[in-house]
């Protein structure tokens, strides 16, 4: 990438010098130079300057997560930690832990128990550092009238004094963690993929923000940061994963990761933990005795839009 950029016409020698930083100090000086002069140098100059304005050279030249060496991952994690420290004044944990051997995660939601309280929605926002403004919420709770399962007649805008409401039932929808995901297939840069434990993730530092994956997803499971994400410093969750809930930047896509930062440490996703009626179940599909496996074997389960052959690992079921 550096070579391509340096060959761009219309850049001054100062810019070229700054593109080959011998030390981080020089890089910082280069950043200064570009901030002052870069904007007048045509598109190439502006794009480079924008890249610098919002990130460091290390970030600009950072590789796709799947192509990084162990050392590069460590460096990147350190850089992110200092960035976050600067922004939020807190010490972050940025895990890059791989999958646990022998795990393949699945999820099940009991629509007979769900009372539509949306506690999962807000627990998810807090756990996963979703932007409060503009608002991002990975979980949508759809309300249906009893006797009707037509999405067309459902709504996410219900606001009663008490839930559950008589005559209604609820169907929360989030990323369905498909085994045949239409979203990862369309990404032109492989910034999103399925991890070996079945979690569909995004490398926020590789995403080019084309939003093709959002067009491809039939469940509206993906969200875009249309402006700088805002998270109050006292609300920010410092226990993060590189592929999960670490703070994002503007103009990139993000999504539910089954709380990768928790489940790879043997914990439940935040939505499962917070559900007051125990409607949400999570576990290892490879273990025939896990709760999730038993539900799939013994209950009446269905998957959303199964006719599209997306093969979600997110099941809905009836407990009675």
């Amino acid at each position, binding site marked *: *990438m550096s070579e*391509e950029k340096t060959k761009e016409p219309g850049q001054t020698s100062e810019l070229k010098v700054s593109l080959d930083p011998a030390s981080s100090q020089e890089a910082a000086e280069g950043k200064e130079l570009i901030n002052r002069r870069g*904007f007048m140098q045509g598109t190439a100059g*502006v*794009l*480079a300057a*924008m*890249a610098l304005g919002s990130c460091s050279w290390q970030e*600009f030249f950072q590789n*796709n997560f799947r*192509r990084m060496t162990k050392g590069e991952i460590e460096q990147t994690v350190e850089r992110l930690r200092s960035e976050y420290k600067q922004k939020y004044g807190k010490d972050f944990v940025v895990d890059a832990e791989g999958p646990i051997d022998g795990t393949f995660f699945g999820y099940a939601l009991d629509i007979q128990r769900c009372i539509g309280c949306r506690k999962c929605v807000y627990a998810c926002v807090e756990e996963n550092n979703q932007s409060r403004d*503009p608002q*991002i919420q990975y979980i*949508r709770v*759809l309300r249906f009238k009893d006797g009707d399962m*037509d*999405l*067309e007649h*459902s709504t*996410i805008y219900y606001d009663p004094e008490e839930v559950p409401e008589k005559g209604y039932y609820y169907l929360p*929808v989030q990323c369905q963690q498909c085994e045949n995901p*239409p979203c990862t*297939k*369309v*990404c*032109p*840069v*492989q*910034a999103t993929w399925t991890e070996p434990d079945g979690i569909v993730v995004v490398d926020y530092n*590789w*995403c*080019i*923000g*084309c*939003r*093709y994956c*959002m*067009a*491809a*997803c*039939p*469940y*509206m499971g993906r*969200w*875009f*940061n*249309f*402006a*700088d994400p805002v998270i109050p410093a006292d609300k920010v969750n410092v226990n993060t994963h590189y592929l999960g809930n670490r703070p994002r930047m*503007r*103009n*990139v896509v993000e999504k539910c990761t089954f709380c990768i930062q928790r489940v790879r440490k043997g914990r439940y996703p935040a939505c499962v933990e917070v559900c007051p009626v125990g409607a949400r179940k999570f576990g290892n599909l490879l273990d025939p005795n896990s709760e999730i496996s038993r539900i799939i074997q013994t209950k009446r389960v269905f998957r959303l*839009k199964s006719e*599209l*052959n*997306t093969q979600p690992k997110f099941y809905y079921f009836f407990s009675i």
Partner: protein
Amino acid sequence: MLEKALRGNKSYFAWIGFLLILVGMGFGFYLRQLGFGLGITGMSRDVSWGLYIGQFTFLVGVAASAVMLVLPYYLHNYKVFGKITILGEFLAVAAVTMCLSFIVVDLGRPDRAFNVLLYPTPNSVLFWDMVVLNGYLFLNIFVGWTVLESEAKSVPPPKWIKPFIYLSIPWAVSIHTVTAFLYAGLPGRGFWLSAIMAPRFLGSAFAAGPALLILICLFLRKYTKFDAGWEAIQSLAKIVTYAMIISVFFVLCELFTVFYSQIPEHMYHFLYLFVGLHGHSGLVPWMWASTVLAAIALIIMINPKTRNSPGTLAIGCAAVFFSLWIEKGITLVITGYIPSPLETITEYHATLPEIGIVIGVWALGFLIMSVLYKVALSVKAESA
């Protein structure tokens, strides 16, 4: 040869200056977009592609103008198009440049655009679209320029250029097909999930591109010394007529399938588009404008009398162009998102900065076209 673009009369430079101002304005808005994020546009979580991708889609079609001249001229030795083939090729250059620019302004992180090359992804249609568009741009610049250079030296074009010319013909088909496949392969979007999408793209492309070319030829005939020849314009007009009929027929095929089958995921989009859905009708006026324009276009273009007269022909071609501009540039992309896969309705309204950027990119395209045409016409005037 490029220096010929630097010589011209007052109105030429006034036109170039005007375009430069528009490009500058668009660039100013673009800087604001870069600084704030794509939230500055009318796009949202539910409608995540808007005017930019719409314009891109339409302009892929305009780029087709070249093949409708190249094919008859080089494959069928249809000499009448000899004079204007270069206009088609250079129009394609301008159109494809606009396409690529619209993709870039739509990217959230243009600074990472090179990731497409750093991590090539054959399973993504968008990756292939980038390949075919850049290829088509290269082919048209290369072929157009080489042939024009020979003309300037009053020698026949070199023989080795022929394979590139022949290659450009299927390549033109590929840019529409691949662009249609961007949409036609997504399981959750009933509006786009149609096997006729690629043929539809070809149909409308072969109408919109040559229609613009006729308008340009009529303009040049009236205000400059360059005359494309009435026979060439008439042949183009027949191409536009057939292509427009086919294009409208394809849309009617879509309407039959969705409304006779009554499958909601496919039908709701068309209802939203033509009559509105649950009180939301943002695109209804646009769609009916496009429909009325298409009807006017068909009446004028099918009737030989009106097709043969420059005045009505110009109206007919303008009607074709704007009807398809609405259809591809606005409604096709946005309606795919309304209603959403979870059947919610969020309308889309373009914002001022967004429209400013769109105008800026169009001005950039016209600038490139004007400069290239200036060179081509100067060469032709000197060698004549």
